[in-house]
């Protein structure tokens, strides 16, 4: 038995929760800048501290929270707001569906916990890790999720307090943090699937871009994201045959 190999594996699984926290750190800048920006936008949209806190804690979805503010400002009826937020966040269904099969051995309650704290970023980090390790501990995901959730709540509320002094967060380029994070996660994904599949994956990205452009003429972009993903992934399956 090779003891050094055993030691390495032991080191990796000893504190999966702490490892999850550590793996969340690179995403924190994104959470903090978007969260602070949201707090500022929320207070500029005349939301009070309780409303900002409730949105942050209960909805916990960056883009949806910004859209909520915009819809409230334009006097949109509540049911239309709720339906719009549903469509905007429906992409999480696809993300949960692709992560969930790795966690079936855990209880229903743990699974509800995993799903409740799934965001674009934690999904990106978790799926990148899964591509590398093929297996994942629930404690690791908890560490990642709870760190991200805590960072989000603190920065949104911090931003709401800052909102009294700063009024235009987009001037500082902070709104681009989220897009930059998607770009980095996409590159990490391409790297983890390996060189042999690179051409095929670049091809799929091209298909997504074309579908997005076509769909943008017929539907809101949030819906285009979901449909382009569904179709392009299906094309990926066909290409693999």
């Amino acid at each position, binding site marked *: 038995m090779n003891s050094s190999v055993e030691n390495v594996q032991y080191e990796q699984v000893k504190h999966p929760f702490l490892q999850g926290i550590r793996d969340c750190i690179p995403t924190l800048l994104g959470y903090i800048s978007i969260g602070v920006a949201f707090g500022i936008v929320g207070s500029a949209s005349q939301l009070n501290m309780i409303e900002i806190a409730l949105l942050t804690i209960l909805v916990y979805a960056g883009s949806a929270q910004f859209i909520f503010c915009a819809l409230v400002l334009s006097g949109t009826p509540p049911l239309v*707001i709720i339906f719009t937020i549903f469509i905007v966040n429906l992409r999480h269904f696809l993300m949960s569906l692709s992560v969930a099969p790795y966690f079936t051995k855990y209880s229903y309650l743990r699974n509800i916990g995993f799903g409740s704290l799934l965001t674009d970023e934690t999904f990106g980090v978790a799926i990148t890790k899964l591509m590398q390790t093929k297996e994942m501990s629930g404690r690791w995901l908890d560490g990642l999720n709870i760190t991200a959730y805590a960072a989000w709540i603190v920065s949104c509320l911090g931003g709401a307090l800052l909102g009294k002094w700063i009024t235009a967060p987009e001037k500082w380029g902070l709104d681009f943090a989220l897009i930059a994070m998607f770009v980095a996660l996409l590159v990490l994904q391409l790297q983890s699937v390996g060189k042999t599949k690179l051409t095929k994956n670049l091809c799929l990205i091209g298909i997504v871009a074309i579908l997005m452009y076509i769909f943008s003429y017929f539907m809101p972009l949030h819906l285009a994201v979901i449909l382009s993903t569904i179709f392009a992934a299906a094309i990926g399956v066909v290409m693999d045959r």
Partner: protein
Amino acid sequence: MSMNIMIWTIIGCAIVTWLPRIIPFLFVKHVKLPSIVMKWLSFIPICILSALVVENLLVPGDGITSLNWSVVFAFIPTLLLAIWTKSLSVTVLAGVISMAIIRIYLPV
């Protein structure tokens, strides 16, 4: 909007956001997904991440969809740095700085 209605609207948004997040986790515990569905799911990460990037590059307008040029200009150095460094934090920082510079010097 009164505070009361606002809070119920937020709760409504929370429920419709929460359900799509948790339903797959509960569903796959019951049902073993066929291998073709698993194959399809394996393409979801790349497709959805690229769709989210493209979403920000596009601006749908009256009858024509155009590019959001300030985002495109910030996107290029961000992508190059992501490929070069493969680092999440460096990419995010570089992206924010490029966007700030573009907003200051190139009012698009």
